């Protein structure tokens, strides 16, 4: 059946005809939907969502793809069914009134039926055929066909008729969904449907460590490739959605736009003065190191810039978070009111990891935020093993990057005395673009907070541990104070500052004294110079007097000389 996929390049462009499932995510896994015009089997245990999946297939077919449907139920009366799916926002009665849907309840009551001789199920065929023809249905659901086996005795006839039914559905050209209960060793109780169906999907409902996760797997799909993994799926008020794990290609677009951290001073520690848009940031630290505060600052900053932000709080309720943040001057409430901020609180143990991821995905799709904050990511570890957490985070980060969403995670580290990574950090650190650590710095009977950047991809950053304080006005990063033994914080910083002031005063005094000294010395010097100059001048005067006297004598001598010659 799966011929010619690899061998003949000619067939590469051939697209197997498929019918969209109407289930979010399932189309991606099945690469387009269920096989068009062929029967597909959905099997699984009780309460795993078979009926809902098939109902969604029918309803979405009508509402989204304009394909009428027939829902033949062997289990629930049509009225019950309407009521059951009404809570999911599907209005069956309206669709029925619009002649786009027929819900036919086939009741098989063993006590009412007596078997006497040969028979066949032509009646069922006629009924189904009539319903299909009435609304010109393209989609058909039979839920759950093996109820027939409970109501009728003759297994041989039933098996033969079931086989005929599948062929008949194919001939009718309808895309059929048949649900079946899971058998003990085979996929279905009768071990028949899976062989005659062209596509088999198994639904599963598993509880691991008291947390239940629904999963879906495609067992076979004739004539088409498909995702082979187990995919978690979620049933919520919008019906079923499946989370494909496959898209793990690293080819998302990158932005070199910078978004501010919102914390005054922290921007300055980055060369680009902030984070890249679409990057992910991890803020790790021990308890009480203001991770949430930093996260709230970031959220506030984004809201101020009119960017939609989703805050997933796994520790605090929205009200509590708002109250706590208000105490340090961060008021998130107006942004919730004007729609830029959504705080989504839930307990990590509420769901399995996958469901958390799905919830995230749904919120991202519905709200379309440009910033996501998860506080704290480490709490999710409580509900999964390390491997699971890692795979979930990979997908989460992948998804966020794909949507160019800036994401900030906080993570609680357990090791107290050093900043080395904890489990959550270790498993995500290689995926994270920017990693900020806040830590306690303990000494001389007090505890101070320090912040530093471990890494920041594609951007230069400060190597300093900056102390910061949280007051009722918010976070304030203090300037680096270097002491003889490294960076000083808290009291030591203050002592150091006082010391510095004292020595400054001392120095000033010293300088003043020296100045005075010099002034005095200058005075002495100047008076000395004066004295010398006076002495010099008097000598000079004496000299000139002498010279003049000599000249005078010479002149006198000259005057006498010629007289003597004339004589």
């Amino acid at each position, binding site marked *: 059946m799966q011929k010619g996929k690899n061998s003949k390049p000619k067939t590469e462009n051939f697209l197997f005809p498929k019918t969209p499932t109407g289930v979010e995510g399932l189309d991606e896994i099945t690469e387009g939907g269920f096989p068009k015009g062929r029967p597909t089997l959905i099997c699984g245990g009780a309460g795993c969502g078979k009926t809902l999946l098939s109902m969604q297939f029918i309803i979405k077919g009508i509402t989204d793809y304009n394909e009428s449907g027939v829902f033949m139920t062997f289990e629930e009366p049509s009225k019950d069914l309407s009521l059951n799916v009404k809570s999911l926002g599907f209005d069956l009665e309206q669709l029925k009134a619009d002649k786009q849907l027929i819900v*036919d309840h*086939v*009741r*098989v009551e063993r006590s*009412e*039926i*007596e*078997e*006497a*001789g*040969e*028979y*066949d*199920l*032509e*009646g*069922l065929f*006629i*009924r189904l*055929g*009539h319903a299909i023809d009435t609304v010109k249905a393209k989609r058909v659901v039979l839920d759950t066909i093996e109820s*027939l086996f409970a109501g*009728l005795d003759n297994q041989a006839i039933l098996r033969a008729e079931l086989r005929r039914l599948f062929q008949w559905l194919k001939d009718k050209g309808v895309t059929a969904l048949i649900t079946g209960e899971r058998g003990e060793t085979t996929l279905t109780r009768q071990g028949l449907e899976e062989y005659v169906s062209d596509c088999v999907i198994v639904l599963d409902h598993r509880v691991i460590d008291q947390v239940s996760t629904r999963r879906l797997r495609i067992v076979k799909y004739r004539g088409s490739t498909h995702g082979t993994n187990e995919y978690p799926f979620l049933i919520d008020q919008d019906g079923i959605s499946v989370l494909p794990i496959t898209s793990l290609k690293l080819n998302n677009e990158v932005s070199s736009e910078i978004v501010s951290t919102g914390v005054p001073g922290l921007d300055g520690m980055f060369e680009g003065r902030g984070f890249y848009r679409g990057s992910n940031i991890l803020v790790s630290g021990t308890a009480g190191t203001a991770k949430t505060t930093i996260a709230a600052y970031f959220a506030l900053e984004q809201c101020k810039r009119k960017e939609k932000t989703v805050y997933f709080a796994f520790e605090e309720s929205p009200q509590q978070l708002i109250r706590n943040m208000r105490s340090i001057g961060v008021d998130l409430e107006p942004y919730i009111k004007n729609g830029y901020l959504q705080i989504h609180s839930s307990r990590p143990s509420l769901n399995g990891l996958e469901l958390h991821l799905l919830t995230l995905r749904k919120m991202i799709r519905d709200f379309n935020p440009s910033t996501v904050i998860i506080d704290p990511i480490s709490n999710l570890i409580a509900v999964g093993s390390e491997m699971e957490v890692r795979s979930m985070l990979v997908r989460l980060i992948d998804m966020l990057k794909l949507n160019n969403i800036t994401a900030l995670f906080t993570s609680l580290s357990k090791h107290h005395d050093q900043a080395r990574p904890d489990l959550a950090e270790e498993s995500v650190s290689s995926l994270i673009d920017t990693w900020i650590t806040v830590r306690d710095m303990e000494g001389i009977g007090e505890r101070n907070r320090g912040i530093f950047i471990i890494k920041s991809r594609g951007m230069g950053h400060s190597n300093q541990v900056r102390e910061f304080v949280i007051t009722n006005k918010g976070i304030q990063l203090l300037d680096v104070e270097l002491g003889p033994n490294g960076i000083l914080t808290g009291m030591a910083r203050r002592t150091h500052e006082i010391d510095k002031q004292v020595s400054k005063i001392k120095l000033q005094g010293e300088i003043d004294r020296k100045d005075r000294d010099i002034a005095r010395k200058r005075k002495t010097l100047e008076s000395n110079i004066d004295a010398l100059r006076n002495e010099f001048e008097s000598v000079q005067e004496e000299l000139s007097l002498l010279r003049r006297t000599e000249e005078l004598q010479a002149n006198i001598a000259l005057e006498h000389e010629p007289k003597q010659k004339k004589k």
Partner: protein
Amino acid sequence: MKKEAEWHLMLYIAGQTPKSIKAFSNIKKYAEEHLKGIYSIEIIDLLVNPQLAEGDQILAVPTLVRRVPEPIRKIIGDLSNEERVLVGLNIKPLK
């Protein structure tokens, strides 16, 4: 309800198949034998009236439905097993 229609039977068939012909001749025979004069048999061909299949919850053919007297009983198959038919229709108590 008149006396002659005290037993109202309906036979659902899908076309003139050997099975439906056999079923009809069988029920005719049993009725003549046990319910002479107080029965009526209505034959419904689902190929002609497919919409009627839903009302009586028909899935197998041939199906014999006892409408009257109540409660409604259904017997499927070609009715070749006389014992079961008679017990099923409550003509004859189970021995």
